[in-house]
């Protein structure tokens, strides 16, 4: 075999090995979580509340808390992201300003989640005096995922054929009517996709909520806004992961991890059909 052939084979082998490693890691991670936590999953686990510092009972209110945070995040992120998408495409003139704003949007995406948590601690918790509040957590999570939602929305917006826009303008539609009657409906699948993806991330985040919204035990459903914390699945795992393991707790922590993974996966998969469709349409274009 010549040297060139050998190098070619080596390249193929190395690339394949890398991909197998990555996939192997994924399967290993999922496998370990499922193996360790499977025994904890039961109807009782999902519907009961926590007892004995996690050694007994279930994770009902942790799930409820996560649901509240996620719903708030969605309510915050959607209008902001939609507005940003429309603003960048329709109202902000092309050029330096638009490029800068887009760059800032991408920058927001890169901000570490702990920074959100810190700002939340200093601003919401202390300066505004909210103490731990589900609203702070939801606001921070919502802001955090705005870029994800906005980028997916922008992709769909920019894919709207120019002919469609020209036809609408030709019919005499004003800009704002163009937005509400044509752009928003046509690109709405981008908003949905982006939101599902963003929420998938928000559901699993610990850092933004650990100072501002989540506690380990003692909360059920919040009553007000000030001093109204919630429980949350990721924070629950985080706290328990730090103590040396009581074996009774161990299985339940893994079980919580399975539930969290399930939620994250479901949200991410929910975005999949739309994403595949966008991918197909882009490919054919």
């Amino acid at each position: 075999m010549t040297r060139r052939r050998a190098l070619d084979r080596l390249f193929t082998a190395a690339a394949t090995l890398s991909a197998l490693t990555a996939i192997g890691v994924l399967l290993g991670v999922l496998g370990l979580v499922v193996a360790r936590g499977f025994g904890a999953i039961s109807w009782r686990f999902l519907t009961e509340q926590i007892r004995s510092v996690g050694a007994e009972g279930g994770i009902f209110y942790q799930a409820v808390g996560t649901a509240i945070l996620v719903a708030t995040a969605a309510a915050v992120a959607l209008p902001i992201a939609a507005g940003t998408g429309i603003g960048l495409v329709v109202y902000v003139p092309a050029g330096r300003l638009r490029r800068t704003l887009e760059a800032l949007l991408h920058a927001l995406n890169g901000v570490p989640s702990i920074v959100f948590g810190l700002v939340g601690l200093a601003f919401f918790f202390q300066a505004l005096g909210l103490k731990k509040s589900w609203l702070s957590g939801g606001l921070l999570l919502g802001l955090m995922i705005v870029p994800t939602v906005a980028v997916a929305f922008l992709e769909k917006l920019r894919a709207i054929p120019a002919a469609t826009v020209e036809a609408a303008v030709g019919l005499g539609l004003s800009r704002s009517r163009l937005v509400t009657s044509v752009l928003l409906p046509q690109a709405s699948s981008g908003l949905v996709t982006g939101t599902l993806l963003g929420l998938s991330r928000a559901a699993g985040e610990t850092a933004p909520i650990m100072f501002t919204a989540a506690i380990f035990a003692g909360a059920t459903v919040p009553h007000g806004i000030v001093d109204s914390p919630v429980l949350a699945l990721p924070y629950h795992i985080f706290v328990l992961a730090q103590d040396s393991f009581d074996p009774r707790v161990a299985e339940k922590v893994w079980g919580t991890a399975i539930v969290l993974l399930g939620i994250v996966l479901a949200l991410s998969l929910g975005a999949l059909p739309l994403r595949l469709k966008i991918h197909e349409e882009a490919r054919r274009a």
Partner: protein
Amino acid sequence: MTRRLDVVRLWSLAFTLLAGGAVLAMAVYLGVASWPVLRGEGLSFLTGNDWAFRKERFGAAAMLYGTAVVSGIALLLAAPVGIGTALFASEVCPPRLRLAVKLLVELLAGIPSVVYGLLGVVFLRTVMSDLFERLRWDAPSGDTLLTAGVLLAVMVLPTVATLSDDALQSVPSSVRDAARGLGLTRAEAVHGVVLPAAAPGLLSALLLALGRALGETIAVFLVVGRAENRLPDSLFSLAPLVDAGQTLTSKLGGAEPTIALGDPLHTAAILGLGLLLLAVVLALSLGAGALRARLALAQAHRP
């Protein structure tokens, strides 16, 4: 003609400014809030190796060192495997498999950091300490900078792979056709033509992955050991790898931010760390963006 208030325009511009201004607002807020400490400590905030809030000493050098080491290890491990995976998906893999591979890699990206942290605590920690024993390295436990680096490598691997794949895919197929048409093997075409063409995009991918690594808190917090003010005597000594350490994020992810609320100076110092983290990550993000722009420009010039 009366001018009606264009609600749609108002709403979208307002929110666009909100989204765009958010980063700046955070940076300014952190800057203003941490100014007392930054002014007081001056450069020793970065270079001083003494973080002792009770004594009102705020030198973050050890944390900067820890952050650099942990992120460096993560990239060192994740880059080859990630770019290799991207090469597989883009250049080697049969097209029908490509989507499946990409989806699986993305799945890895979606796993929350706390789950990685849990795996690190329960499994990686013991694996590492066994390894240290096997190699007869003197390590007190499995909670070390190296452990955090390895865990972080797994976490940024999907980022490297996905973004590198994007960079490789942006090289048009006509380039590969031209190279293969000359009789070059696939490896030669990739090495001689595709990789150079994709280089800015690959670099951008690594910078963004580095940004992710720098900002990761939860998983690193759980396995890094959280030992204060550990700075090695020599820059190149390997001893810190098997020793517990501290990073910017592991400090911020602990109890100290909450404790700091009681003392304005302490709060300022903690927020200063946050500002530092934000500044570095933003710089990397800008760099990556500039590289991507350069790549797009190069594409546009091609006939």
